[in-house]
């Protein structure tokens, strides 16, 4: 009887007023952690916390996916002088939910002579790869599922895993278009992974760490995009281009090039399996955009200018989560803008762009950045 009373007496409280939680989520997470510890053994606490985080990330994943599909349709509609979805709900905001239900109820068509196991496995690989990457992204101060000390490397490695799913999907579908799409995708991602890595390395040199939280903290007095002179800017541009290619989005959507290969690697997929591919594409876009926002644009860090105390104070007033979302969506908007403006590249031009332009420039850029850091010429 006694220990319970003790536990009740020392019931933990939030260390800060509740409305300040939005500025620093660590108080909230600490409080949840302590409360759970008080009522459970450490083992079950960990399990419960993992479950909570898992459910939260799943929810976030679904919401972001649905919202991004809606946003893409609206953005492209406005660029094309159209209204976009406007039937379901005000301004059509429930359109994607209706689409989701449609996809859920659709028949999963079995393909003759397809490799059944791999055919069913492929969408899961694609979606798990994007699901894993989201765990390491710092959403706001203290809102960070896992803060790996090699965060940048982890996200890159995990998000590149999705190509296995694409290759499997193309191979196992027993469709010639799918196979061509998958092979294109393989060549594309192997090449562009290099550029993504190198452009991130440019910033890792500047920050001196691969830990995403450290990178964000280092941008307290200015975003790396501005701190790193022209070199960081070039890295940002290259990151934008190569990450667009890595997520198989236009103008680099060769793997699904609809006017050439009908739908590329997911031609034969229907219903919820197709939805997995579709959702993973948008989540991948979200992931690369949030990496760009974290690494180049300061993540959840507000916009600060040197010694303007008053200005910085006003900027601090906006919650970090809003900053993070705003920056991410800015990058996503840029990627949508690319997709809905440019014609598609051809496969050999795609590789030429990578090996003859992006890679040499990138290597040179890393060199310049290293030099700048060594000389201490950055801000």
């Amino acid at each position, binding site marked *: 009887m006694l220990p319970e009373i003790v536990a009740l007496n020392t019931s933990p409280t939030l260390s800060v007023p509740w409305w300040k939680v939005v500025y620093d989520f660590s108080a909230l997470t600490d409080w949840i952690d302590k409360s759970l510890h008080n009522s459970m053994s450490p083992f079950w606490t960990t399990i419960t916390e993992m479950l909570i985080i898992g459910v939260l990330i799943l929810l976030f994943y679904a919401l972001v996916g649905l919202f991004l599909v809606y946003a893409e349709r609206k953005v492209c509609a406005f660029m094309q002088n159209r209204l976009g979805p406007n039937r379901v709900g005000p301004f059509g905001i429930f359109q994607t939910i209706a689409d989701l239900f449609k996809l859920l109820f659709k028949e999963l068509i079995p393909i003759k002579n397809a490799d059944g196991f791999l055919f069913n496995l492929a969408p899961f690989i694609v979606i798990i790869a994007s699901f894993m990457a989201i765990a390491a992204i710092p959403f706001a101060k203290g809102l960070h599922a896992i803060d790996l000390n090699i965060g940048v490397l982890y996200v890159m490695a995990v998000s590149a895993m999705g190509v296995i799913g694409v290759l499997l999907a193309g191979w196992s579908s027993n469709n010639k278009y799918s196979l061509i799409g998958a092979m294109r995708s393989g060549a594309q991602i192997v090449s562009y992974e290099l550029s993504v890595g190198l452009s991130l390395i440019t910033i890792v040199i500047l920050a001196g760490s691969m830990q995403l939280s450290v990178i964000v903290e280092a941008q307290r007095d200015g975003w790396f995009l501005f701190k790193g002179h022209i070199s960081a800017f070039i890295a940002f541009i290259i990151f934008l281009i190569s990450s667009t290619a890595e997520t198989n989005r*236009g103008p680099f959507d060769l793997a699904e090039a609809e006017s050439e290969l009908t739908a590329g690697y997911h031609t034969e997929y229907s219903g919820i399996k197709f939805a997995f591919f579709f959702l993973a594409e948008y989540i991948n876009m979200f992931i690369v955009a949030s990496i760009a926002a974290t690494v180049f644009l300061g993540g959840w860090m507000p916009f600060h200018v040197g010694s303007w105390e008053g200005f910085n104070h006003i900027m601090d007033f906006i919650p970090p989560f809003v900053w993070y979302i705003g920056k991410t969506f800015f990058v996503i908007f840029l990627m949508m803008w690319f997709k809905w403006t440019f014609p*598609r590249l051809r496969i050999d031009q795609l590789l030429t762009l990578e090996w003859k332009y992006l890679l040499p420039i990138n290597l040179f850029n890393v060199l310049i950045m290293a030099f700048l850091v060594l000389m201490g010429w950055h801000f």
Partner: protein
Amino acid sequence: MEEKEITNLTDEHQEYVINMGPQHPSTHGVLRLKVSLKGEIVKSIEPHIGYIHSGIEKMCESITYPQIIHLTDRMDYISAHINNEAVCLNVEKALEIDIPDRIKVIRTIMSELTRIQSHQLWWACFGMDLGGLTCFFYGLRDREKILDIFEETCGGRMIVSYNCPGGLMYDIHPNFQKRVKDFIKYFRKILPEYDQLLTGNVIFHERSKGIGTLTKEDAISFGVTGPTGRASGFSCDVRKHEPYSAYDRVQFKEILFDEGDTFHRYLARIDEMWESMKIIEQLIDNIPEGPFAVKMKPIIKLPEGEYYQRVETARGELGVFVISDGNKNPYRVKFRSPNFSNLSVLNHIAKGFKIADLVAIGGSLDLIIPDIDR
């Protein structure tokens, strides 16, 4: 035994055959291309046609001359008005009727509007073939303006049926001139946007320059006409060489290029839109007064003989060949459709390029499948 199978697989003659079409996003209709690939590279293309064969030539034998008009609408449905005009001119030539100037001028304006809207649609689809989906909506948005003009005057948007032997079905709408002038003003402002979006784009240049080169000799021997032929330097504009309607009284340039690749086929059409606008501007303010149709007999009978008339549609030279045995129905009708000859050149120029190039080349030929099959 095992080994033999493996060598068989790596055989040089082994082909990876894909069927593009009859349902495929880039064949713009029910054209089926049997494409043999080696990796990404196209080894040969075998077009299979006839999926939308509707027997128009045979149907023409059992109906009267005014009734043929509505069938020609459905051949090359993007340049319906020019097709109608070809049949009408042929009948009028056979009957030796003098057509008043007013009809000639209106027909010319309508034909040029048809040409512009056809090229707009082509631009839209070509952009889409190359993956620039926004082009499609801009092209259709501007085409809508011309279709509105058509609808107001002819009652139909695409299938206009505005011509009839001896003139026009109705007079032009009172708003016609104002609307056309507004459109020209609007489109002169919009066309440079097309250039910014696609013509100047570096990706587009890479995708189209030097792709699918057609030499002048090949263009002539394959009978490739229209902007496709003129981009190869084959001077084949019927409007210049054999002026019909009011083309002999307007100033315009025949767009000719020497390169003959996809990019220049593209440029030829963009430049033709400018030229068409010039033609319309010359005519729109001086439409002569007069009747909109010549009084014809209720039943038109062509004197016995063979008649041929060619016109320049948006895709090339359309020929109408009629054999009459003196009855109210033609004995035999043959259409020389430009798309059929233009398609025949596809295998010749797309061999050795990649699949993506095949789509670009196919788009630049601007094929309309019902016109191929008729």
